[in-house]
C-alpha cells in the first residue's frame, strides 16, 4: 500500500473526527484538512490543486445555495410562523396532538425546504406554546426529539430536502422522480412507526397537569400573539409558482437535454428572486450560508483527493470481495453508514460513502444502494443531538426559551435528553432502511 493511500484517508479521517470533537472550530478543521490533502496530493503526484478543485461537485453547491434561497424567500413570507400558529390552534392544546401535528408538519416542510431555517421559525412558537401550557422534562425531550427526527426524515424523503439527497441528485446518480418514488414511502413509514411508538409506548404526556383553564388561557394567548400575522401573498405566490415550476422541470426535463437539476434550480430561484427585486437582492447579499458552503467545499476537496488516490475503490473492492452474499455486503455497508453518520454527521459521511456506494451499485440495484444509503445517513443523523445541525440549534433555542416545569425547575434539551429518542429513531430508520433496500434488491432480482 503506497504512502498516499494511507496519508490521504488519514487526513480525511482525522479532520472529520476533529470537526466532530471540536464543533466550535469545525470550519478551521476542515479548511486545514483540505489544504493538507491538496499539499499531499501535489507532493505525491496524485493531482494538482487545480485538478482536485475541478473534481468538486460544484453543481451540488449550486443546488444547496439555490435551495437555501428558496427557504429564505418562504421565510420572508412568514408562512412558517403562520403554519406553527395554526397548528397550535388545531391541536387545541392537547399534548399528544401537539407532538404529532408539529412532527408531521416539520416532515412535510423539510421535504421541500431547508429544515434548519424552517425549524428556526417554527420552534420558538412551539416553545411558547409549551411554556404557556406547562410541560415536563420528559415531554420536552420526546416532543423536540421527535420533531428533529421528523425533520431528518422529511429531508430524506425528497431529492431537495437535505444534503445527502441533494448530493444524489446533483451527482446525477438518481433522477428526481426515481428518488422521490423510492425514498418517500419508507421515510413516511419510519415517521409513522416513530410516532406510533411514542404515542403508545412512551406516552410522554403522562403525568402532565391538565387544567382546562390553563389550556384555554394558552390557546387564547397564542391566538392573540398571532392575531394579525398573515402570509405575505405578494412574496408567497411567485415563490410558490417558481418552486412548483422547478418541481415540474425536475420531474419532466430529461438529463439528456443537458439541462441538469442544478441549472433548473438556478433558473427557478433566479426567477423567484427577480420577481421581488428589493427582497431578492437582500437575500442574495445576506442569506448565503457561507459556513455550510465553505464546509462542504473543503469536505469535497478532501474527498476528491482521496478518490484520486484510489482508496475508495480499494474499500469498495474489499467490501464486494467479502466472502458473503451481496445482500450481506449491502447490509454491512448500510449499517456502517448509519454508525459513521452518527459519529461524524451527515455531510462528511455521505460525501465519502457515496464513492463506495457507486462501486456497490455496479453489482446491486442502484436504487437499493442509494436509497438505502440515504436512509442510513438519515438514521445516523437521528442518533445523537450533535449528528445533525438542527440539534444544537434546537438546544440553543430551548435554553433561550427558559422553559420551567410545575416545580419551577428549568427544562432543557441537551445531548443526554435526546439519547432515548435518538436510539429509538436510529433503530426504526436503520431497520426500515435495510429492510427496504433488501426488498428493492429482491424486486430487482425478480424483474431482472
Amino acid at each position, binding site marked *: 500500500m503506497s504512502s498516499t493511500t494511507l496519508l490521504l484517508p488519514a487526513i480525511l479521517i482525522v479532520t472529520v473526527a476533529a470537526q466532530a470533537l471540536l464543533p466550535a472550530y469545525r470550519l478551521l478543521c476542515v479548511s486545514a484538512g483540505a489544504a493538507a490533502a491538496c499539499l499531499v496530493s501535489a507532493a505525491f503526484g496524485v493531482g494538482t490543486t487545480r485538478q482536485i478543485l475541478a473534481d468538486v461537485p460544484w453543481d451540488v453547491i449550486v443546488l444547496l445555495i439555490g435551495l437555501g434561497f428558496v427557504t429564505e424567500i418562504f421565510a420572508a413570507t412568514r408562512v412558517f410562523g403562520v403554519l406553527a400558529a395554526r397548528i397550535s390552534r388545531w391541536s387545541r392544546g392537547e399534548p399528544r396532538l401537539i407532538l404529532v401535528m408539529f412532527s408531521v408538519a416539520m416532515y412535510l416542510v423539510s421535504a421541500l425546504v431547508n429544515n434548519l431555517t424552517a425549524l428556526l421559525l417554527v420552534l420558538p412558537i412551539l416553545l411558547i406554546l409549551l411554556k*404557556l401550557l*406547562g410541560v415536563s422534562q420528559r415531554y420536552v425531550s420526546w416532543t423536540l426529539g421527535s420533531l428533529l427526527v421528523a425533520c431528518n426524515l422529511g429531508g430524506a424523503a425528497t431529492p431537495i430536502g437535505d444534503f445527502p439527497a441533494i448530493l444524489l441528485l446533483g451527482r446525477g446518480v438518481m433522477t428526481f422522480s426515481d428518488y422521490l418514488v423510492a425514498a418517500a414511502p419508507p421515510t413516511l413509514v419510519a415517521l409513522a412507526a416513530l410516532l406510533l411508538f411514542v404515542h403508545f409506548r412512551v406516552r410522554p404526556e403522562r403525568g402532565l397537569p391538565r387544567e382546562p383553564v390553563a389550556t384555554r388561557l394558552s390557546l387564547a394567548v397564542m391566538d*392573540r400573539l398571532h392575531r394579525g400575522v398573515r402570509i405575505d401573498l405578494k412574496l408567497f405566490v411567485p415563490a410558490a409558482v417558481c418552486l412548483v415550476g422547478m418541481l415540474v422541470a425536475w420531474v419532466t426535463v430529461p438529463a439528456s437535454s443537458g439541462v441538469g437539476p442544478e441549472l433548473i434550480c438556478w433558473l427557478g430561484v433566479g426567477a423567484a428572486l427577480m420577481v421581488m427585486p428589493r427582497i431578492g437582492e437582500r437575500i442574495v447579499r445576506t442569506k448565503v450560508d457561507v459556513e455550510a458552503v465553505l464546509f462542504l467545499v473543503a469536505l469535497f476537496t478532501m474527498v476528491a483527493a482521496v478518490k484520486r488516490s484510489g482508496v475508495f475503490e480499494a474499500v469498495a473492492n474489499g467490501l464486494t470481495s467479502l466472502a458473503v452474499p451481496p445482500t450481506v455486503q449491502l447490509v454491512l455497508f448500510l449499517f456502517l453508514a448509519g454508525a459513521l453518520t452518527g459519529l461524524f454527521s451527515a455531510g462528511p459521511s455521505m460525501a465519502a460513502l457515496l464513492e463506495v456506494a457507486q462501486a456497490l451499485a455496479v453489482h446491486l440495484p442502484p436504487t437499493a444502494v442509494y436509497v438505502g444509503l440515504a436512509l442510513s445517513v438519515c438514521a445516523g443523523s437521528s442518533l445523537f443531538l450533535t449528528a445533525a445541525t438542527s440539534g444544537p440549534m434546537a438546544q440553543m433555542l430551548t435554553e433561550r426559551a427558559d422553559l420551567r416545569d410545575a416545580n419551577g425547575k428549568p427544562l432543557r434539551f441537551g445531548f443526554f435528553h435526546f439519547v432515548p429518542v435518538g436510539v429509538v429513531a436510529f433503530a426504526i430508520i436503520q431497520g426500515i432502511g435495510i429492510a427496504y433496500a433488501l426488498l428493492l434488491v429482491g424486486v430487482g432480482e425478480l424483474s431482472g
Partner: protein
Amino acid sequence: MSRFGPTVVQAFEVAAGELGMCSAAWLFVREVAREGSDELVAELRDLLGRSFPVLDAVAATWLAGARAPVVDSDRVLQACAGASQVVIVGAETLFLDDLLPRMGTTRAALVTHGTFAVDWDRVVANYPGYLDPVDLSSFQRLAGRRSVLLTFVYGTQGESTWVDPTWLRIMGPDVRTQFRSIVGWDVLGGAPYLYPRWVVEASLADFSEVIRA
C-alpha cells in the same frame, strides 16, 4: 389545589411581554370569566394580583362590572394631529390595535425594547403596513418638529404616573426638546392599588399631555 395549574405565572409573563401588561390582564380576566365565573376571576386576582399589580387592577375593574377597557383612540389621534411620525414606547396591543389603523399617513414606529423576552418581529408583523420597528439606540433619528413620542401610562396620582421601565431609558432633557410633544395614554384609569411592580414611577410633568382613561 388551584384550577389554574402551576405554570400560570410564566404564562402571564409570556402574554404580558408581547401583548402588554394591561392587554394581557384583560385577556386573562376575560378568558377566565368565560371558563368559570367572577369567582374564578377573584381566584386569579388572589393568585397573580400581588405579583402583577396591573392584573390586580384590571381584575378589580372586571369585578366592579366593567367588561372591556376604555380605548379612546380619538383623543390620542387629536393629540397626534399634524404629526408625520409617532414613536411608541411600550406595546399595549389592545390599544394599538385600535389606534394604528386610524393613523392615516402618520407613520408609527415601535421602540423594540422591553422588560420581558419578546419576539419583536412578531409584534410588528401583527400590524402589516402600520408599524415599523426602531431600536433603543436609533429612535432619535425619528425625532423632529413633526414627531410625537407616545407611551402608555398605568394610572395617575397627584403629580405621578407609572410607566414601562423602558421609558426611563428613553426620556431625558435632550429627548424632551427633540419631539413636538410627549403624550401619555392612560390604559388603567386609577392608580394601582398595590405596589406597582414591573412598572416605574415617572413625573406627569414629563408629558405634554396625558390622555386619561
